[in-house]
């Protein structure tokens, strides 16, 4: 299984439909301060089912919707699609390619889809259970968070080890 594509539309600073293709190896994301690099990492965390707004540098669920700039009006929705190659059958589904979609509207309403079929958040979590992806803390390290692994109290470190067990 590997990450093939990420599509963002209306998520934080990605007011325009943006498409990122990924291949094997190391992909570096570069650019000036404030240009939107960490917003890409937030988009991945979000589409994989993250619900703790604090981990997304947000106060409420609609904070991830593009809220306008000098040149563009605020949008009414944020949407992210993540596409994974599943030829090796690592994900518990028959599809050889799996696309997970998450949307949130100004009203606060959320939608989740797997291969365009509406599902609940629970289904997204079940899909990624034990595959090494998703909310597990050692696969997405947000800016400034790497130090937290060492500085948490010894009881908190446990949770990290338990995810591996």
């Amino acid at each position, binding site marked *: 299984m590997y990450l093939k594509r990420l599509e963002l539309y209306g998520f934080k600073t990605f007011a325009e439909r943006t498409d990122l293709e990924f291949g094997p190896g190391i992909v570096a994301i*570069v650019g000036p301060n404030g240009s939107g690099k960490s917003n890409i990492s937030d988009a991945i965390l979000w589409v994989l089912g993250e619900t703790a707004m604090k981990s997304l540098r947000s106060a409420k669920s609609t904070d991830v919707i593009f809220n306008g700039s000098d040149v563009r009006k605020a949008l009414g929705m944020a949407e992210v699609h993540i596409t994974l190659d599943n030829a090796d059958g690592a994900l518990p589904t028959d599809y050889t390619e799996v696309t997970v979609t998450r949307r949130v509207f100004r009203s606060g309403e959320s939608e989740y889809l797997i291969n365009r079929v509406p599902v609940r958040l629970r289904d997204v979590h079940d899909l990624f259970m034990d595959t090494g992806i998703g909310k597990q803390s050692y696969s997405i390290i947000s800016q400034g968070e790497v130090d937290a692994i060492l500085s948490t109290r010894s009881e908190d470190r*446990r949770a990290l080890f338990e995810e591996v067990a």
Partner: protein
Amino acid sequence: CTEKFLTAFAAIAHEFQDLFLRLFGGGATELKLDDPTNVLESGIEINVTVPGKRNQNLLQLSGGERALTALALLLAMLRVKPSPFVVLDEIDAPLDEANVGRYSEVLRDFTRDTQFLIITHNKGTMEAADVLYGVTMEKAGVSKIVSVRLADHREPVGTG
């Protein structure tokens, strides 16, 4: 459950030692359960010694030493339970040039099983990447992806 946890714990401890040696070129590590009689709830203690120095309390480590130690632990977990992709957001910020080199070399070893998305400002890390995505704001407040460089032809494509 206890069985499974102890096996994973021992495996992580082993890999942590190996990766710490690779990143620091020496030294020693120790992962201990605070209370071995209560495996399922005990906290976890981390002790490391950087090459050439005496036993250190984690608090005394320098900014760069902490980042490399945390990285060694992360990669140890990745070895025990691989993840198809990993996102690392500017974890190379505290590192000096030599350590940036070691960091990207060690990551290279993991690319058989894992894809890495690395956010960085560091030229050394950029050079080690296979693909480079540039993010910019041509229109105020709106992000745009501008260029993709493929390792085989080092010139960024269409950075206009």
